[in-house]
């Protein structure tokens, strides 16, 4: 067996150019598989991270019956945070409440629909450390008519620091109100949707604009216990708690579809690789008919000849698979450390994704080893037929072949 392995390896080196060309498809397939999985896992992380760092914490509560699609923020379904809920929240861990409501922002001749995110300056940073956000300018000063614009929204409206704008919004009761504001900051958060559609102001300023009467639309909690435990204690007080995975399940489900489409692409590359390997091994068999005949004449059992060719495919698959695994893992590890910045693409597409424009890929061993194994298995399977062909050669004729 060891001898056959060495013979197989030497035969592969013999036509190195062809071996490398064939192996490249396996390298690409395995690398893509690992990278694709790493990227999708990274996207999953990214979705959760975006929600955790920008609006949900580890547990998000909305008034019972409030829509959670993130596209509408009806003020008439907002609710006050009752003393009973406040007590429970205080016991659960750091928390903050926000009110998000629709408005129209007007700057000169331009107007655009926007969502106002009103935060409580006293508690906001207990839940959202804002460390990964990029703020140009400053956050609004207390009791001043100042706003911070989401980065993509600011770009759309060509908002600059110091710009005077009007925000027109409905009060909670339905009357139209409009007030002048100064743009004092532009922020890029971890959430593209918010950067596209939001302006930020302190809750007291929002109270003036929308006459909220203290109602809130979301509460974000960082529970000291597990989110599930906290969820149980906070339920039934007029607000519906959702853990982070529950909150993001629809986006995560979309990733499952993406994962399938990557598998299809990998499958196609592997099919190409398999065809290449089968072709290479069968070519090797055709070219070496006399050699195979000689081995048989010298008494090598047919199953050893078959094994020799299977090994040639398998060794190629293993070596190419290792290269592919190293390549794919390197990419995943690199972007796990440095993050892939999609901001320019996202800006071009004006895409609305509840996630950060910086995606950190996610390395794990299981998909890496699985991809490698997959490469080897494909290579061996592709060699089965050529190997069988080689082992059925008639030595009496083959030894005299040209």
């Amino acid at each position, binding site marked *: 067996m060891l001898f056959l392995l060495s013979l197989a390896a*030497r035969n592969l080196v013999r036509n190195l150019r062809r071996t490398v060309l064939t192996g490249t498809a396996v390298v690409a397939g395995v690398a893509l598989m690992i990278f694709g999985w790493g990227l999708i896992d990274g996207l999953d992380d990214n979705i959760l991270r975006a929600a955790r760092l920008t609006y949900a914490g580890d547990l998000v509560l909305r008034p019972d019956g409030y829509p959670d699609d993130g596209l509408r923020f009806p003020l008439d379904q907002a609710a006050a945070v009752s003393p009973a809920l406040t007590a429970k929240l205080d016991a659960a861990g750091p928390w903050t409440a926000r009110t998000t409501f629709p408005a129209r922002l007007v700057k000169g001749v331009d107007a655009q629909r926007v969502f106002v995110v009103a935060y409580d300056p006293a508690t906001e940073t207990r839940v959202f450390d804002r460390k990964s956000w990029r703020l140009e300018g400053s956050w609004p000063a207390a009791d001043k008519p100042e706003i911070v614009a989401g980065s993509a929204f600011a770009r759309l409206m060509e908002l600059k620091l110091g710009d005077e704008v009007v925000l027109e919004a409905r009060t909670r009761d339905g009357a139209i109100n409009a007030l002048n504001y100064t743009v004092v900051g532009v922020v890029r958060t971890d959430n593209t949707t918010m950067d596209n559609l939001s302006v930020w102001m302190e809750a007291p300023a929002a109270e003036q604009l929308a006459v909220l009467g203290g109602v809130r639309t979301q509460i974000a909690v960082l529970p000291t216990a597990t989110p599930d435990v906290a969820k149980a204690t906070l339920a039934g007080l007029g607000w519906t708690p959702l853990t982070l995975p529950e909150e993001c399940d629809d986006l995560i489900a979309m990733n499952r579809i993406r994962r399938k489409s990557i598998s299809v692409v990998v499958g196609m590359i592997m099919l190409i690789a398999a065809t290449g390997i089968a072709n290479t091994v069968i070519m090797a068999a055709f070219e070496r008919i006399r050699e195979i005949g*000689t081995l048989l004449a010298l008494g090598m059992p047919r199953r050893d000849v078959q094994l020799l060719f299977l090994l040639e495919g398998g060794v190629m698959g293993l070596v190419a698979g290792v290269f592919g695994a190293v390549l794919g893992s390197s990419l995943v590890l690199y972007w796990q450390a440095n993050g892939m910045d999609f901001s320019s693409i996202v800006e071009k597409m004006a895409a609305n994704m509840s996630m950060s424009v910086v995606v950190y890929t996610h390395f794990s061993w299981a998909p890496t080893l699985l991809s490698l194994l997959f490469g080897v298995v494909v290579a061996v399977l592709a060699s089965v037929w050529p190997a069988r062909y080689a082992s059925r050669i008639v030595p*009496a004729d083959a030894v005299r072949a040209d």
Partner: protein
Amino acid sequence: MICELVDVTKEYPMGELKVVALAGVSVGVDAGEFTVFAGPSGSGKSTALNLIGCLDRPSSGKVLLDGKDVATLADEALGAVRARRIGFIFQSFNLIPVLTAAENVDLALRLAGDTENRAARVEKALVDVGLQDYLHRRPSQLSGGQQQRVAIARALVKKPAIIIADEPTANLDSTNGEAILELMREMNERDGVTFLFSTHDPMVMSRARRVVKLKDGHVVGDERRA
């Protein structure tokens, strides 16, 4: 008698027709012979050699090797017989290109399942054919004559009952061909190794001590010389 064909017929199907390669041939080879099967192509000499070399089975008749009929052995068993008892020398040398001279010779012992003192025996076999300085060369680094010497060492190393040499000089120039033939003749005379050739090279035939002539699947002459 080391090997013997007894009333052997070999037919090959060729489409609807059957080509008769051997038609009732009986011929034997004794230990220590230096014999040539001669004849034009199509005479059946290669077929006869294949049968004696256990590379093929007859349509009818017996193939006796060491007194045992191998005509009815299964593929695997026939392979095992070849590995242990038959040495081959081919027209095109047929060395394994990725193996060195020594490894090529070693391969024969490995396949014969003959593991005792292998390295020394391999070296001795190569020294015997005059290649002591070329043990670790690959076939591509050797001349035709040198390659054929490796092939002879490979055939000899396992001490087979008979060495089948199929046109061993055909791909060599006359000087090299003669040297190779001289080497085999020497081994035959000194060590009593049995050689069976197929050839139409007159030089080979002149060196043979017995020439069996075949034509159209029949033995048409059997001439022994002193």
